[in-house]
């Protein structure tokens, strides 16, 4: 080896080892870092926000009905698909597939549900503004549940009448209404829907909205479970030595410091759910073969136009309570291919990653943030971060401290 090269290599190794050495001592967190650790802890999670658009959001009877509906494959066109087909209870309410498969494959990765009641916007692109409005979308998507509105109302009348009526009051008369009709179904179902009287369509829409509201009441009960990180954070907050599995290894400490420090992960993955609930273009590639995906740029209009949104006729909220919708950014380049920051709680065992399952492993995710490629459309917000091999391992080790044991994902 020539002298200049070995000199440079030695110099680089010494330089890059500095952060590693300074992170060896678990007590090496600065006061500022301790404060950030506290802000990420589950102990900082605020109370579940109210959903004024859903008057049964916190009604236990509605949550119980919602749980039954969530797991019932009868709530689908072919009788084979339920919410739990993709939101699998034993897998953090997701399916570990790149893209969800109901009746057929969709264009997006199934999102996990822990802590979903705290999210102001639903779906990767935020195209719905409440959990109940979200729950309705897959039910009418031909690739997901593949059912239709009058079909669902008949199903409720036949299988859940008394439980439904205890919560929402009497079901409308359905005897004269077609078995299969809806505004988003097949050509025939759409024609049948159009031919129905307006009052009947409204009555069906109300039952449909109530199905969503019951499912939402159940989903609000799915909260993020405590992790090793939270036990570590509790010790940091109380000024005591972490004990047992709350002790972080040197590698995990380095990963934590990178995460909240120079890797800038904390910019977007902040707060106790490790998400800023906002939409970002991070330059993730488009999946070949899928239709053009504009992300938030297309979704915000869908949310504003949704008849089941907070300002719509089926919402229980006063217009002034619909702040997210009223103050949503509606246009601008920042929305193009922007997707919601996902929570990192449980992410380590939740491959593949990104909105269409573009990355198979956490290593690939970290390489992406390191390389910071140009976005396929719009402008990526991320700036490349150079990781050492150890730094890369350290970040992954830290993310694993946020992992969720399978048995604790039950609501």
């Amino acid at each position, binding site marked *: 080896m020539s002298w*200049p090269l070995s000199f*440079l290599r030695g110099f680089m190794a010494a330089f890059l080892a500095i952060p590693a050495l300074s992170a060896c001592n678990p007590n090496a967190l600065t006061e500022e870092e301790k404060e950030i650790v506290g802000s990420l802890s589950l102990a900082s999670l605020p109370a579940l926000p109210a959903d004024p658009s859903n008057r049964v959001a916190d009604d236990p009877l509605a949550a119980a009905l919602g749980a039954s509906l969530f797991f019932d494959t009868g709530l689908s066109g072919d009788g084979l698909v339920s919410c739990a087909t993709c939101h699998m209870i034993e897998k953090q309410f997701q399916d570990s597939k790149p893209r969800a498969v109901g009746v057929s494959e969709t264009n997006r990765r199934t999102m996990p549900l822990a802590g979903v009641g705290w999210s102001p916007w639903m779906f990767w692109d935020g195209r719905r503004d409440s959990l109940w409005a979200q729950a309705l979308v897959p039910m009418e998507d031909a690739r997901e549940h593949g059912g239709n509105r009058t079909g669902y109302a008949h199903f409720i009348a036949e299988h859940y009448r008394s439980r439904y009526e205890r919560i929402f009051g009497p079901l409308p008369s359905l005897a004269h209404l077609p078995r299969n009709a809806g505004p988003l179904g097949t050509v025939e179902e759409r024609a049948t829907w159009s031919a129905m009287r307006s009052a009947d369509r409204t009555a069906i829409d109300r039952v449909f909205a109530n199905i969503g509201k019951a499912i939402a009441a159940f989903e609000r009960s799915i909260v993020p479970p405590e992790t090793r990180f939270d036990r570590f954070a509790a010790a940091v907050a109380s000024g005591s030595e972490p004990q047992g599995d709350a002790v972080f290894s040197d590698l995990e400490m380095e990963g934590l410091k990178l995460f909240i*420090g120079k890797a800038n992960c904390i910019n*977007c993955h*902040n*707060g106790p759910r490790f998400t800023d*609930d906002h939409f970002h273009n991070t330059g993730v590639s488009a999946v070949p073969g899928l239709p053009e995906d504009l992300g938030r740029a297309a979704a915000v209009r869908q949310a504003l136009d949704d008849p089941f949104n907070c300002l719509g006729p089926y919402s229980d909220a006063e217009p002034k309570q619909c*702040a997210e919708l009223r*103050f949503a*950014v509606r246009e601008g380049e920042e929305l193009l291919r922007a997707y919601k920051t996902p929570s990192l709680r449980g992410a380590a065992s939740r491959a593949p990653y990104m909105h269409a399952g573009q990355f198979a492993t956490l290593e690939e995710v970290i390489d992406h943030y390191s390389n910071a490629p140009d976005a396929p459309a719009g402008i990526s917000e991320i700036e490349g971060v150079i990781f050492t091999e150890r730094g890369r391992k350290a970040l992954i080790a830290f993310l694993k401290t946020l992992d969720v044991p399978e048995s604790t994902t039950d609501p």
Partner: protein
Amino acid sequence: MKWPSRRVVLLAAALLAIIAIGMAAMHLVARPPDDLDLARSKSSANGIYAVSIEPEAEPVEQGKLHSWLVSVTMADGSPATDAIVSIDGGMPEHGHGLPTAPQVTGPLPDGRYRIEGVRFNMGGWWELRFSILSPAGDDEVVFNIVL
């Protein structure tokens, strides 16, 4: 041992300079300037108005949708009751705007205005820019907020 050649010294110096610049840049990205003006009462850029801002509830919490109260007076101290106030902002170091589109939701008495729908979704240095339009003139004022 032989002294390193001139080429190597130059190379090492260049490397050190790059690292120093890189660290300085990282420092800039991570923190706002030390002398950042955090005053909540200011004159507008052309001195037409005196503007004060305060959040409706303290402390301002990261991630939470919240409101600010803006008080606008003329240079002579009289309240600017008929102004059109609009708001914009963002994070100068990240190059992005506000995550929401806050609006004035109705003037209050005495030249005060309520701005609803503000959210700071990240920690760090934020700017809130107010444009004020009244018969007295069109002017702007920028406030810095650090979370």
